[in-house]
């Protein structure tokens, strides 16, 4: 049990009268990369927002790093060490690259070396060259790197990464995959939501398949790749 960094049970959430999640159960182990997979509208982003406290859970329990964080405000969840990279990036376009990182800065926990802008420049060399540039003047791929870097500045133990490859050019997608693997090397657990099997297969150890607000399948990435049946039922459009 101790190796679980995130443990979600029976999570229900929705917008107004619309129910989206009907009891989601999922776990994330320390240092693991898991891919939350599903079609458009299956509930991937909603799951992440609900875990992050940005959408109040209606039922269920969320434990993170041993603490029950159900119903916490997003800022407390972030301070507890759970990072969030939203699907639509949501960088602060009026701020420079360096200022965007400053917004994300939180002290490190547990004696690990803290992330600094300098460390992140070597992680994302592209960003280093444009540290003084306004974020609004960046390309989509650069903005995607910036949102990840910004979240890393919070020194998270785990990161929710919503659709990191969406809408990016193939060469940038490769860099994203590299970034995810390097986060894993640093010991950060990653739960990423993904529609593309290729990307998930390149980075994830485990796959969790969601459809219509419930988890339908859970297993190793390898098993998913070999199981035509599961893919056809829950993933193929």
């Amino acid at each position: 049990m101790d190796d679980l960094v995130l443990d979600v049970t029976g999570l229900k959430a929705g917008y107004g009268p619309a129910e989206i999640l009907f009891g989601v159960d999922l776990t994330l182990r320390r240092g693991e990369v898991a891919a939350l997979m599903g079609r458009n509208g299956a509930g991937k982003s909603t799951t992440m927002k609900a875990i992050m406290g940005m959408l109040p859970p209606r039922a269920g329990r969320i434990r993170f790093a041993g603490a029950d964080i159900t119903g916490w405000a997003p800022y407390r969840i972030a301070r507890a060490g759970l990072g969030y990279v939203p699907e639509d990036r949501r960088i602060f376009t009026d701020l420079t690259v360096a200022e965007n990182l400053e917004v994300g800065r939180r002290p490190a926990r547990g004696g690990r070396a803290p992330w600094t802008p300098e460390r992140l420049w070597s992680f994302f060399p592209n960003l280093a060259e444009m540290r003084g540039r306004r974020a609004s003047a960046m390309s989509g791929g650069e903005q995607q790197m910036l949102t990840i870097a910004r979240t890393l500045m919070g020194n998270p133990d785990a990161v929710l990464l919503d659709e990191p490859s969406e809408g990016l050019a193939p060469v940038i997608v490769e860099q994203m995959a590299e970034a995810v693997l390097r986060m894993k090397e640093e010991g950060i657990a990653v739960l990423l939501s993904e529609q593309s099997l290729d990307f998930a297969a390149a980075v994830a150890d485990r796959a969790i398949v969601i459809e219509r607000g419930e988890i339908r399948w859970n297993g190793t990435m390898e098993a998913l790749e070999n199981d035509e049946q599961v893919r056809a039922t829950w993933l193929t459009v």
Partner: protein
Amino acid sequence: MDIGFIVVQSLSGLASASALFIIASGLTLVFGVTRIVNFAHGSFYMLGAYIAVTVVPWLLEIDRSPTLFFVGVLISAIAVGVLGVLMELLLLRRLYKVPELFQLLATFGVVLMVQDAVLKIWGPVDIPGPRAPGLRHGVEILGQRFPAYELFLIVIGPAVLGLLWLLMHRTRFGILIRAATRDREMVGALGVNQAMLFTGTLFLGAALAGLGGALQIPRVSASSQMDLSIITEAFVVTVIGGMGSVPGAFLAAVLIGQLQAFGVLVFPKITLVLVFLLMAVVLVVKPWGLLGRPEAAAGRAALPEGILSIRAFGVPERIIAGLAIAAMLAVPVFGDTYMVKVATEVLIFALAAFSLNFLVGNGGIVSFGHAAYFGLGAYAAGLLVTKGGLPMEPALVAAPIAGAAFAALFGFFVVRLSGIYLAMLTLAFAQIAYAVCFQWVEVTGGDNGVVGVWPSAWASSRHVYHYVVAICAILAIIALRRVVYAPFGATLRAARDSEQRADAIGIDVRTHRWLAFTLAGGAAGLAGGLYAFSKGSIDPTLLAIPLSVDFLAMILLGGIQTVMGAVAGAAAFHTIKDIFMPLTDFWRFLLGASIIALVLIFPRGLGGAFAALRGRA
């Protein structure tokens, strides 16, 4: 005109601009982070002035030094900042998620409460402040004398701009504020406690207002009317500059300062009009202001839930409506003169409030200056009778025409905007109308207005005039109600719920809204005309902000999401006001507190309560 005069005129414009910028920068900062347009910002300014005229003379007793003068000014600013923190903790915190209309009304409730508190603490007499030691002399500039204190003000505006720039770009707090201005939810998801950020912003914003007020004391006396006059100017500055943009506020303040300094030479009577015209032009050309940007989709409603289900009257509603009409018609038979007067006014305000909810509840157009059309109707009728020598009947025909004509003129600009910018523009137009009636003394009688607006001989008794009002108001309400139920009303609701979708199915949203605005203005104009003859006089309070807020309070009390709620709300509001106002010195305080309570506790009003009861039965 000699060059020295032009330079001095321009300098005095810059001094005003500096003062205005300091106040407006606080307003725009608070709006940028909290997305609340804080009416009470003008009250903070007023409190800054009052605290300064209390603290500074006390300090100058110790030693008449410039240092102590400015220490006093800073103490005042900080004290006001603390009051801003209190307001954030007690009120604003509960308002961040409510619709914009409710935020505006609740902060206006604070304005009313502060007005009475100031009168209680400092009394009704204006209090002049001490002049600043060391800056009392004049300076010779190109042969003209110019006050040294004004020169000092010219310096302090850019100094505040520079300090704010440093704060916003060189400190973590400032960077967080700028980030929150774009996307405060994401700032929270990155581990920033928004509550602290908002409280800090309110301290800064309120302290800037307080600083603005305290710096004014050598120039103007502290008075209990300075809150509303400054807040409209500050609104105009932030709207022209772009809401949330501090440099925009500076630019706009300089523009307005110069416009006023030179406008007063060309059109001495209508400087206020010039300022509001500038705002109208800027908003039409650049709807987000000079340096503003379109609001990021913050996922927040501008409006409370409007009228959703419109059902035809069932048996209970028919009985209630029938009884209400019968009761109104029976008042002259059974009631005394006072009751007749109250009943007449209830009918008039019911029509005005109904026409406002036609815009707000049905059309999603939040007008913050509906009293303008009421007042313009009253002035049209009143002036035709007193200056034009016409009898009552044609004057009462002219009243709705005047209301509709001005609503059509102003509405042409208004319907080009949406949300908070639209509300600000309606407010600005209402202030133009107010300014004209206030400043054009020869025609309108200025502040005193015009007396002798009496009905024709046959209708001169209160009882008969009550029936004149009853027939006009009830028929007008029935007609407007039919419009709500007609396809035109449904189209307006469609455009309210989704402008884009309405557009996509071929509805000309702007034209429909424009017609609705004109129609509502006409109805309000009729109500105003009826009111003028009921009161026998006209004066600028009939177009002023407090009456606009009264109308909004009426529809809020009645329930915005019901068709007939406005009528019940007007009746309840006016009766309560008429009974309680003479009994207490703290009427405004009570009204303000009630508006806040309504917004926080009963956002659906009386009509909502009635609908809930019916739903349960």
